[in-house]
Every structure is written in C-alpha cells, then in structure tokens.
C-alpha cells in the first residue's frame, strides 16, 4: 500500500473513474456494489488499478462522488482482510501445449510447475479483454513469465494459462497470448447460463490437479 490517496476523475456525463491508489479495485468495487444506492448504477467496472462507476442517469453526479469517497475512506481504512468472496475449486489436467516450454524457461520439471500453480492463492481481480475473461491474480513468483511473443489466433474454452502474476481460464473463442499449462472441463463462462459467470469479482480460486 502506498501513501497516495484515491482520486476521482470525471468520465463522461454519467461516469466517475476511481484511481484506487491503495485499496484493491476488486475490494472497492465489491464495497460499492454492497451500498443501497448501487441499484442506481449501470456499471461498476474494476480494472488493474481503477474502478469505473457509471450511473444510470446524469442527475446527482456530485452526490455520487461524495458517496464514492465515503466508500473509499472505509475500504482504505480497513486492514487488509481476505476478500469477502467465495472460494471456487477448479480441477485442472496439467498437460497444456506450453507446459514443457514453461518448465524449461523456469528451470523446473513439468510436475513441479503444476504443483506450484496449484499452490497459488488466486483472487478474481477483474474481467476484461473478452466476455468472461477473468484475470486471476496470485501466480507464485517462480512461474511469472512475460506473454508469448506471438499469440494464438483462437483458444478453446477451459484452457488454463499464465502470464505475469496472473492466470486465466479461457472463456473460449478468443485469441490468446498466455502460456497454456492445462485444461479444465469446468465451464466457467456460459452465455446460456444464468448468471453466465461462475467466477465473480473478489472470489478466491483454488486449482486442483487431476490425472491426465
């Protein structure tokens, strides 16, 4: 946590962009959603360091800013407590297309890569890039790699991949520049389901290795 204070920036007629500074955007977004006036918001969109808040109507943008500042004071004042989300367990078969290459680059054998990945404690930070693409923070130090130099044009749903300190379960149909280490048969994103997302912002995720 650094000393900088959160900043609210106007983002169009009906929006405020919060530069979170200290608190995690996922925690700020969760706290905003818990307020009774959240029903008057159209969108609360956490990202890497910010939360975009969009109201349904233009009326009351200044009172909204005051309410948002109150939420930020509360979240910022809290000791860093575990996020209030659920824990979701995802079984993974660690036999991804890039597993051997990842093992070589980080100097471990593939089993150790899989073990290390299951030992991480992951939190759903935010969604972006594509529908259902949830960025999970918390890849252990030893597994952090930059993205592939050339992304694959299309990645199947359920592919588990890593890049930097983040891991993802691909929702399907998108290009992908992350290192593919495994696959899950769990469907985490399904536009025909209600809701379409099995993971929600703030949830903790545990990966469990299953036999190939």
């Amino acid at each position, binding site marked *: 946590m650094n000393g900088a204070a959160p900043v609210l920036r106007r983002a169009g007629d009906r929006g405020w962009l919060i530069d979170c500074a200290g608190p995690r955007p996922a925690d700020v977004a969760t706290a905003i959603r818990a307020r009774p006036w959240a029903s008057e918001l159209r969108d609360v969109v956490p990202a890497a360091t*910010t939360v975009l808040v969009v109201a349904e109507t233009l009326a009351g943008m200044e009172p909204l800013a005051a309410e948002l500042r109150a939420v930020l004071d509360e979240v910022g004042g809290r000791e860093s407590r575990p996020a209030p989300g659920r824990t979701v367990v995802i079984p993974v078969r660690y036999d991804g297309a890039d597993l051997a290459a990842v093992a070589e680059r980080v100097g471990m054998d593939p089993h150790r890569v899989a073990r290390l990945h299951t030992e991480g404690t992951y939190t759903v930070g935010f969604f972006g890039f594509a529908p259902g693409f949830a960025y999970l923070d918390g890849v252990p130090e030893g597994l952090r790699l930059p993205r592939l130099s050339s992304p694959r044009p299309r990645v199947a749903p359920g592919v588990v991949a890593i890049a930097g300190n983040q891991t993802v379960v691909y929702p399907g149909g998108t290009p992908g520049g992350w290192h593919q280490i495994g696959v899950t048969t769990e469907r985490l994103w399904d536009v025909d389901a209600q809701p379409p997302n099995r993971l929600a912002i703030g949830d903790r995720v545990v990966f469990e290795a299953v036999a190939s």
Partner: protein
Amino acid sequence: MSIAMATANALGPAATARAAVLTVVEAGVATSVQDLGRPGLAHLGVPASGPADRRSFRLANRLAGNPENTPAFEVTLGGLAVTLSESRYVAITGAPVPVTVDGVPVHDAPLVRLPAGAVLAIGRPWAGCRTYLTVSGGMEPVRVLGSASRDSLTGLGPDPVGAGSRYGLGPARPVPGVPLELAFSVVPCGGPVPVRFRWGPRHELFGAADRHRLTSEPWRVSAQCDRVGARLTGAALSIGSVDLASEGTMRGAIQVPPSGEPIVFLADHPVTGGYPVIGVVTDADIDLVGQAVPGDELRLTPMY
C-alpha cells in the same frame, strides 16, 4: 424487383400461413440486428452494444407502435431489402434513404404499409450512414445475455444478417399515430458537425497545446470507422507512449493511441482500454458521431 421474384426467392413453399415472418432478400454491406443492447455487464467483459444511433432506433420503434427495445435492423450504407409474409407497417428512421416497394419509390418514408409478399428495398443514404428499419410487432431473433444486439467486437448475439435470413414476427401492434412531422432523425448533412464532450478522465496527461489543438482544429472521420469506433484524422496530438494500465471505458470515450489520432468509441467498444481517454462525448451528441461517415468534419467542443 417483382412480387413473383420475391415470392420465389424468399418465401418459397416452406413458409406457412401461421406465423408471420420477415425474410431478408438482400442484406446490404453491413446490416445487423440490434435492440438497446446488454448494458450493465461491462464488469464481466461484455460490451453494451446496441444501436450506434439510439435516438433514431427508438424513434423507429415508437413510429411502429413497438416498445423501444424491440429488435430492429441497423442498416449501414443501405442495401437492405426485405419481404413479409403478412401485411404490416414498417418504420424507417435514421440516415435518410430512398425507399422502394416492388421497385416503386415511396414518398414520406418514415412509415410504410408493406403488403404481404412485396419487397421493400432501401438505397444508399443521402446523409449519415445508419438507417433503422423495424416492423410493427417486432422481429423475434435469438437473444444472447438478454439482448438481440449483434456485437461486432465479440460476436455475441444473433447471427449476421444475410440474404435468406428469416425472423419470426410478434403480433402486429396498433400504430400509435406519432405525427410524422415530428418523426425527424438527426444526422450530419454537410458542414462541420458540432460534438460536445467533457474533459477527462485522462486529459491531465496532455499538455495545454494538445488540449487546445483537440478543440480548435477540425477533425475528419477516417475510413477506419465502424460500430466499435470512429478514428479521426487531423493535427495529431503528441501523446507518445504513456504507461497506463487498462481501465474501464465508455461509449463516447475519445481515446488517444500513440499515433495521436483520436478514436471515438461507439456502440461495440471494448469495455477496457489502455490508451488515455482525453474526453468523453456527451450522451446527447454521441448518436451524431454514430451517423458520421468518412470525410465528415467534427468540431469537438468542451462542455466547460
């Protein structure tokens, strides 16, 4: 096009008398089905989508007696031809286009009674680019995540519209009799288009000279202009590369990539972006940008 041709091409022997059906005879270059989109899902990575010119879209449904969110065609640069299995009113708004029924020009086109089996065709717009066509009773396409909007960025929504696409129609509705003289659409038609915006959220990353340039120089809509956004060309801003983590964006965002030529986000914009947003076009004026065609000149005017 004759009635006989339309019947042979489009309806065919398979069409039954029971449910009313709209059949696409010709799709045009870029026609999609839209309703008011899927707002409120940006936190799951889902763009809001919906019509590029929401005002004209709503007007079409009001004219046809439909609820405002009823699925309709968004026709970009004309070229759509449709036929119905049962006689209905059809409303046409947005970019003004020549309209024909079985080849005969129709005057005062906002609301047309289209007889069963006749082919209604819309030509290239005289101004603007997006025309909305809706049928009394409304089409009933597939809905994905609660919306019938085809999102060009992610592919969510009904399949692309093609010749032979068929859509079931809801029960015809009494047409409310909106005075047609009030049924005007607002589209750019020559001359600079005034577009108001609010500064922020990242205008502070730009120097005073660049901010001045944004508001004082004319910007032209380039050929890179679709439902995702409109790229503008003009006296490029000198932003260079800024290290900014991806953050939430909104319709109307004026995003400045390293080239310095701004992009105005439209209906199918990505929910997050990593280039700084210098300002956001107002809700009132963004529909105008959704009607702009390559070559149109925009005058960006700050609200304060």
